[in-house]
């Protein structure tokens, strides 16, 4: 058993980044004295002062827009959107400005900012607190979209995102903020962005997933192993830019692919992965690609959200059907 939760890993990464680079500034609603509603920024105000840990007005577009201005001036702002459900007022700033500033000035100005937001369901939160709309951001040229799925990856990927010279939307699966712990050294080591992580190797079937869904997917892979089916489990981690090669190599090996994500089916990022496999590994496929996802519905309120979230049972069923297909 480890010692560090995912949300603690976020805090350690923020503190480490702030310590090593005076240009790193944390800003958002309640990030100061309150330490963030999930405590991801706890203690940072006391340690780094109110010029570097700025409580903002309740103003998401201003948070993103101020990050753009700070980043253009050479700072490395890390803005927090309290819940992904509240990110939409900031989308204009992210899509129209953060993602475009380097390109439209031909590199004269750049936008090395990170916008963090807890996302996803399963914690019985109020309305607008549980959606997964990562595909919206993965569609936008100029952004990077990163989703960690464990404490150590949260630490390494957030450090990489902060050090990255371009804007990163960093979505934190809040259902696993405190679900499990890991041990790792707080030594400032970053992980590469733009790389999938193969969490478990196998020859029979490839599971591709990200965020909190790695919990159910790994559990499903355990069950399959009991039946002698060895599933490979890939955590995409960086949706954009996508490391398609790792996925294609795995499908070449296994011939069977099940994609798991919490977001709705239609236009979800699983569709992109499925298309890449159709383009790049069709001849290797022994069965149709399957997607186990949230439904194309509005995220239900807590009493029925468990019907929406892909369960281990659904993830297992898709795998078994894929294995049985010819």
């Amino acid at each position, binding site marked *: 058993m480890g010692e560090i939760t995912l949300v603690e890993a976020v805090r350690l990464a923020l503190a480490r980044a702030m310590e090593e680079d005076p240009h790193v500034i944390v800003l958002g609603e309640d990030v100061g004295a309150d330490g963030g509603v999930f405590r991801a920024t706890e203690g940072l105000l006391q340690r780094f002062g109110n010029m570097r840990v*700025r409580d903002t007005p309740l103003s998401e577009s*201003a948070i993103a*827009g101020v990050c753009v201005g700070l980043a*253009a001036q050479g700072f490395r702002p890390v803005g927090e959107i309290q819940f992904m459900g509240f990110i939409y007022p900031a989308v204009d700033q992210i899509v129209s*400005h953060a993602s475009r500033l380097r*390109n439209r000035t031909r590199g004269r*100005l750049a936008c090395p900012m990170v916008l963090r937001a807890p996302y996803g369901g399963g914690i019985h939160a109020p309305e607008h607190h549980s959606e997964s709309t990562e595909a919206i951001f993965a569609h936008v040229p100029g952004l990077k979209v990163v989703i960690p799925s464990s404490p150590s990856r949260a630490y390494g990927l957030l450090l990489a995102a902060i050090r990255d010279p*371009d804007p990163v939307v960093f979505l934190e699966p809040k259902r696993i903020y405190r679900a499990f712990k890991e041990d790792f050294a707080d030594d400032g080591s970053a992980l590469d962005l733009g790389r999938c992580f193969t969490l478990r190797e196998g020859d029979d079937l490839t599971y591709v997933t990200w965020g909190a869904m790695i919990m159910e997917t790994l559990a499903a892979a355990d069950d399959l192993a009991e039946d002698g089916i060895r599933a490979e489990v890939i955590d995409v981690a960086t949706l954009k830019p996508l490391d398609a090669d790792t996925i294609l190599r795995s499908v070449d090996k296994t011939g069977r692919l099940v994609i798991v994500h919490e977001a709705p089916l239609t236009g979800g990022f699983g569709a992109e992965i499925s298309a890449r496999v159709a383009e790049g590994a069709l001849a290797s496929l022994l069965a149709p690609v399957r997607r186990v996802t949230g439904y194309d519905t509005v995220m239900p309120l807590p009493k029925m959200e468990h019907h929406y979230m892909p369960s281990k049972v659904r993830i297992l069923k898709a795998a078994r059907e894929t294995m049985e297909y010819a």
Partner: protein
Amino acid sequence: MVLTRTFDEKAVALQRTGRLGTYASSLGQEAVAIGVASAMRPEDVLLPSFREQGAQIWRGVALKEALLYWGGDERGSAFKEQKEDFPVCVPVGTQFPHAAGVAAAFQSRNEKRVAVAVGGDGATSKGDFYEALNVAGAWKLPAVFIINNNQWAISVPRSAQTAAETLAQKAIAAGMPGAQVDGNDVIAVRDAASRAIERARDGGGPSLVEAVSYRLSDHTTADDARRYRDEKEVSAHWKEDPVARLRTYLVSQNAWSKSDEETLIGECVQAVGAAVDEYLSAGVANVGDIFDYLYARCPPDLAHQRDEAVAFARESDDG
């Protein structure tokens, strides 16, 4: 102001003859751009909308660069001399939060510099306008927000834009001073902008300046204001033409002669003409450029698309 007007006239002519893209003239609002820009120090940062070419040129954006931008070439925002000013901002009002961010950078570094954002009357109806003013007020940022109230947001008149009696009063809600100034009087604009900018520089916090002007041109070359605006109204406003007013004042002070004017116009025409020649001979950038500046390093995934685009361009002899 004369250079701005000469530039605008030439740009519209280039557009009409198919050699420039859609263009937003600043005809009649030259005093706003020049009054504000001349009140700034070089180390301040300008965050313009799309009608501040006069201010951009004053601050070192090359005429050729402005033409490149409006001609549809990203190189036009890669200013060679002006390193820190923001480029033209098309989505209305979205530049205001950037000004708060730039000002927060100055504040964090303890620098005596000011971020100056300019937008139109329509922009004051946007959420980003208020969000930016609000955070600037709350953090006491060295930012100045200038509204070029030219009375028209494309076809919507100022009277239909808001029930607020003035745009300057919108500052009150954000806890900062708001001033209204005659936007056709370059000396008055410069004075009001200087007060706001120096106040911000001295740690006094942000403020809002509403410069009341008039859009003598169409919204852009893609617009025909006769569809919604009485031409009598426009001709009446020509009486307030800021260039003519400045000339009248200077002449009354015995500070301006006909030969001064001829010399100035000749210089402006020559400068704009030379810029047009440079612009028209600038050629087209490499197709790879549309990929090469998206990220600091082109991701492998995108590099494949780049290769494809470059190959197609080469095959079609358009690379």
